Structure formats: structure tokens, C-alpha cells
């Protein structure tokens, strides 16, 4: 219960912080529209030459783009900014201030920085997803909606653990910003269902940089392609990743010597 209150509190602080810079809201809308143009333009060009991509029709891919925006928005809303701040704190030694707080440091580190305007991306994602689904024409049953919800939570947990593991490396390597750049460019690949990629890349996008579980699997759930095995696999992987990242965090903490003063 304390944790929920804590998360709420940090969100409030995040919102208040960002409200100081209201112009950023319009900057964000502008950026979101540009990336939407790129995503939709890409689809338009591709479907100018074909009617399906590896079995996915154009409205179904529109739904994938919607999920891509939603998840990307969520990552940029809290996971990425918090992790970046955390790595900066390790470098500067200011992590000390977090460690002396009487709460679990992993939780504090994970919710500390919130870029509230990224909610624009989440909203755009929901709208695009809605448009895609209505064009598909099939009604989404309770079963699919449920599968989508579970897949989304599992995907979120997997992506979060992945980021935490990467960020924790900062305890040893201090400068790893470049690795994060790679993640961002890999995330672009998630705009398309991972099934189209060659085997080794599918493997990379599923297990090394887990974009498949974050974007493709939830989209599969909504378009009725999800097998129960995949869903169970996603849940199992989420559990494993959460545990591993927790253990890794503990080991990393022992290596933190503080760099301040």
C-alpha cells in the first residue's frame, strides 16, 4: 500500500515539475505528429505495393503501430527518464541521497523521473489502435481483450527489467549511454511484426532486446493470433526477468562506492 502511495506521490511531483514548462506540451505534440507521419507514411508506401505483409493486412498493421506508440509512450513516460537519471546519479555520486531514504531503493530509482507529456504518445497510440481495430472489422471478444491486457502487462514488465539490467551496468561501466541509443534504434524495428524478420534477428528482438513481447505479442492478442503457449511464455519470461533484474540490482548495489564529495 505504501508503494502505491509512493508511486502516486512521485507522479504528482513529476506533473508539477513539468507544468513549469508548458510549451513543452506543444513541442511534444509536434514531435508525436511527426513520428506518426513517418509510421503511417511507411505503411502507406508498403501497402501501395501489396495487400498483406507476411499475413498481416494494413488495418492489422495499423493496430501494431498503435501498440508501438502506446508502449513507446509508456517507456518514455517513466522507465527511460528514470533510468537515465539513475545512471547519471551513479556517475555523479548523487545516488547517495536516494539510498538514505527509508524505502526500497529500486522502487525509488524506477519512478523518480516522469516526462508527463509523453502521455500524448500513449493517447495517439490508443486512437490509432482503435482506428485499426474498427477497420479490421472483427469484434474483439472478452477473451482477446483479456489476452491483450495480460500480454501488455507482461511486456511492460519485461521491458522494465531489461532497462533495469542495462542501467545497473552503470555500477561497473559508468558510461553506457551508447547502449541505450542502440535500444532506441532497435525499438524502431518493433513497428513491424517481428515474424517478418530473419530467424537470428527474431531471436535478438525476442530475447536480447525484448521488443517482440512488448509490441508484437499484445498486437497478436488483439488480432486473434495469440496462442496460449505464447501468452504463458510471456508471463514466464516476465517472472524470470523481474527476478533476474532484482538479483542483478542487489549485486550491483554492493559495487556502489559513492563518488561524491
Amino acid at each position, binding site marked *: 500500500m505504501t508503494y502505491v502511495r509512493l508511486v502516486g506521490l512521485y507522479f504528482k511531483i513529476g506533473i508539477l515539475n513539468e507544468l513549469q514548462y508548458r510549451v513543452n506540451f506543444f*513541442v511534444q505534440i*509536434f*514531435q508525436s505528429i*511527426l513520428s506518426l*507521419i*513517418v509510421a503511417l*507514411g*511507411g505503411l502507406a*508506401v*508498403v501497402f*501501395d*505495393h*501489396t495487400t*498483406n*505483409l*507476411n499475413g498481416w493486412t494494413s488495418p492489422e498493421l495499423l493496430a501494431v503501430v498503435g501498440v508501438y506508440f502506446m508502449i513507446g509512450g509508456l517507456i518514455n513516460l517513466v522507465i527511460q527518464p528514470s533510468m537515465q537519471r539513475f545512471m547519471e546519479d551513479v556517475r555523479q555520486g548523487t545516488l547517495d541521497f536516494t539510498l538514505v531514504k527509508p524505502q526500497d531503493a529500486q522502487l525509488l530509482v524506477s519512478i523518480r523521473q516522469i516526462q508527463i507529456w509523453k502521455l500524448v504518445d500513449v493517447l495517439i497510440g490508443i486512437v490509432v489502435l482503435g482506428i485499426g481495430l474498427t477497420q479490421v472489422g472483427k469484434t474483439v471478444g472478452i477473451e482477446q481483450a483479456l489476452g491483450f491486457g495480460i500480454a501488455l502487462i507482461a511486456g511492460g514488465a519485461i521491458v522494465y527489467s531489461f532497462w533495469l539490467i542495462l542501467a545497473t551496468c552503470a555500477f561497473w561501466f559508468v558510461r553506457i549511454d*551508447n*547502449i541505450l*541509443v*542502440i535500444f*532506441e*534504434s*532497435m525499438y*524502431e*524495428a518493433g*513497428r*513491424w511484426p517481428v515474424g*517478418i*524478420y*530473419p530467424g*537470428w*534477428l527474431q531471436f535478438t528482438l525476442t530475447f536480447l532486446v525484448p521488443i517482440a513481447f512488448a509490441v508484437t505479442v499484445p498486437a497478436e492478442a488483439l488480432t486473434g493470433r495469440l496462442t496460449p503457449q505464447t501468452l504463458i511464455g510471456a508471463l514466464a519470461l516476465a517472472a524470470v526477468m523481474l527476478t533476474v533484474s532484482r538479483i542483478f540490482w542487489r549485486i550491483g548495489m554492493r559495487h556502489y562506492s559513492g563518488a561524491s564529495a
Partner: protein
Amino acid sequence: MSELFEIYRKQFVIELAVVAQYRVSIALWILSLVAEPIVYMTVWTTITKQQGSVGGFTGGEFAAYYITWMLVRHFAVTLSPDALEWRVRQGEFSALLLKPIHPVHTDIASNIAYKLVALPIILAMMLGLATIFPPTYNFHLWSILAFIPVMFMAYLIRFLSHWILGILAFWTTRANSIFQIFFVSEIFLTGRLAPLSLLPVPIQIVASILPFRWMIAFPVELLLGKVTPEDALVGFGMQTIWLGLEVMLLLLVWRAGVKRYAAVGA
């Protein structure tokens, strides 16, 4: 002229030393650049597997297109306009303005040094991709020779357009939005998303009138042997016109911008 050459040579040596310092960063950064061509290559080859060919491109030709694209993209790397904006905002231009040489020269020299250092990595990645996506090439000797000057022009056009965009920061603090519009245009108009011939005709015309096609798409098409000698000449003419326009624009904007420049910081 020989003085300028000497400046380039010296700057080049300095830059090589600077670049060599950040080998790991550079390798990782380049690695992040391969994702994009692989994604588009996969999308297009998937469609060719379904229906044989797309707009005259077979799977092998798409592979050849994007592998060549990687090379051209590497040669066309410029100083990002964000870096110039940063210089304006941080007052770093003050030191550069004291030097008795236009700052574009040092930037071009450092750009070329970076490209040479990173070239082996790019070539290795091209080879790797070629084993996974077997390309079908049909080279012509003349087009490989013509590629050298065309690529150089293409780089200069892209470099100058980014440089001019960057120094817009002398006037506005929100120049970043303008950069982004330009970058999005590049995705569609330089043949990144798809070879230009697959786009609707009006967009192809826009890409050919504006400098975009001449920055990346044209050298790629030339190296792939998709351009006739006559069209190559016309293209080179367009490149010359755009380069001339950009040099004039640069001189104008630079002169006016420096007058407005109020150094911030030390």
C-alpha cells in the same frame, strides 16, 4: 589554395587523434545505425517473397539497394544541426570566430577523418549483411568511377544544408523543430523508406526538385547501375546547381547570423 590544403591536412591529423579516442563509442553508434536499413530491407524482401518483385525490384536487388545505401549513408554523414545549435547556445562559436578561417572547413575536415576511421566497420557490416541477404549486383565500371565525384557532391550538399539549418539557431531557440521537419523529409525523400521509384510520382518530383534526392538516393542508384549515363550527367548538373545555391545561401545567412551572435558564456 595550398594554404587551405595545408589547413585541411593539419585539421585532419588532429581529428584522427580525437576520433581514435572514442573508438568504442563510435563502434556502438554505428551499430545503432544498421537497424534502420535492416528493417526496411526485411519489409521489402518479405513482400518480394510473396509476389516475386516489387516495382521492378527483386529480393536480391532490394538487398543490394540497402547494402549500398548503408555505404552512401555513411559517406553522407554530416555534422548534425543540433551540434551547431549547441555551439551557438553555449557560446562555443566565440573561439571559432577568432580563427582566420571559416568554421565550415574544420567541420568538413573532421567529418572526412571520422568517415575514414569508421569505414572498416561499415564495410564489415556490409559484408555481414550481404551473407544474410544475398544481393544481386550488376556493376558498370563507368558508374563506379562516376560515383566518386557524385558522392562527394552529395556529401557537400547534405553537409551544407545541415550547416545552414544549424546556424538558424542564431535567430531562434526553437530551431530544433525545423531540424526535425527536415529529418522527416529525409526519411521519405532520400530513398530511405523505399527506393524513390516506389513512391508516388508527385513525391518523386518533389524529391528531385529539392536537394533531397541528390543527397543520398542518386549516388545509390548510380552505384547500382540504375542510372543511364545521360541521367547521370543531368543529376550531376542538378547537384552543381544545388551546391552553388547552398554556398550562396550559406554566405548570406552566415554574415547576417554572426552579426546577431551575442556570445553566451566564456
